[in-house]
């Protein structure tokens, strides 16, 4: 999982990168808020981020506020790190849109555990989003089957949205999980045997 770290402290940034790579994260490093904002708009934005509170350019809380306004970034899990020790800063940081807040100096095992929580939440959000897409597709198919279907009175073909007439089996297979096994019902068997007999 890719993680963005933004901190102007070159020593902490290096230490973070080493630890995160040991924990199998892919790391994007930024030295200030503007670099971080640009990195957030990469083709594949990271799913996790660690922002320092005080940085040149945009500070951590401002980055949080602005990324929550961007739909593609709004689900990102963000941890703010800061040496601000005041309790009201914790509230301010979380209200800016951060998901978690760690005071410096922090314990590396604590950071690792908090990142695991973030990874789990991001994973759940993605699984949930995929389920929503599946459900929307299923709902759309059910609505289609439940609506008015134009069917030929003679051959029983159904006209689809593309104006093609399809065999009823083909149509139902496309919009449902139904599968067909072909046979002949007794009534048809009688009719057709009579025709063959003639």
């Amino acid at each position, binding site marked *: 999982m890719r993680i963005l770290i933004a901190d102007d*402290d070159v020593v*902490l940034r290096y230490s973070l990168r080493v630890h995160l790579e040991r924990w199998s994260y892919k790391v994007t490093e930024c030295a200030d808020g503007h670099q971080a904002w640009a990195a957030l708009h990469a083709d594949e934005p990271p799913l996790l981020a660690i922002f320092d509170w*005080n940085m040149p350019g945009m500070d951590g809380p401002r980055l949080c506020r602005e990324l929550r306004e961007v739909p593609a970034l709004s689900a990102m899990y963000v941890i703010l790190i800061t040496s601000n020790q005041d309790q009201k800063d914790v509230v301010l940081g979380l209200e800016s849109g951060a998901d978690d807040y760690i005071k410096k100096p922090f314990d590396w095992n604590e950071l690792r555990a908090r990142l695991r929580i973030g990874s789990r939440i991001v994973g759940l959000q993605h699984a949930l989003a995929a389920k929503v897409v599946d459900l929307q597709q299923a709902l759309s198919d059910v609505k289609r089957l439940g609506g008015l279907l134009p069917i030929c009175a003679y051959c029983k073909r159904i006209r689809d949205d593309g104006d093609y007439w399809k065999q009823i089996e083909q149509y139902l297979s496309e919009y449902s999980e139904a599968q067909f096994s072909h046979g002949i019902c007794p009534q048809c068997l009688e009719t057709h045997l009579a025709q063959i007999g003639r």
Partner: protein
Amino acid sequence: MLERLAGDDELARQLVALFLIEYPKLLTTLRATIESAQGDDVRRAAHATKGCLANFVESGPHATAYEIERLAAEGRVDATPPLLARLEREIAAIVIDMRKFEAGASCGS
């Protein structure tokens, strides 16, 4: 210092090397902002210095940098030059320890 890195000597050595490159720049910036008496710039420079020191120590120069940051936030930049001098002495002391550590001796901080 090694306590925070759980005895990771190799990483500690790399971080020390980075600090030895970085601290002169941090002190130069802090000194310049104090001389120009720009309160908010002093606060930011002291905060950055404090943050970098926090990777290694939690008292001594770290506390002094915090005191400069606090005074600057209160608009009392004129009270910071003696603290800057103290900070420079304290950093010089840990730099001696760091150079010993780099050379293979144990770092006492």
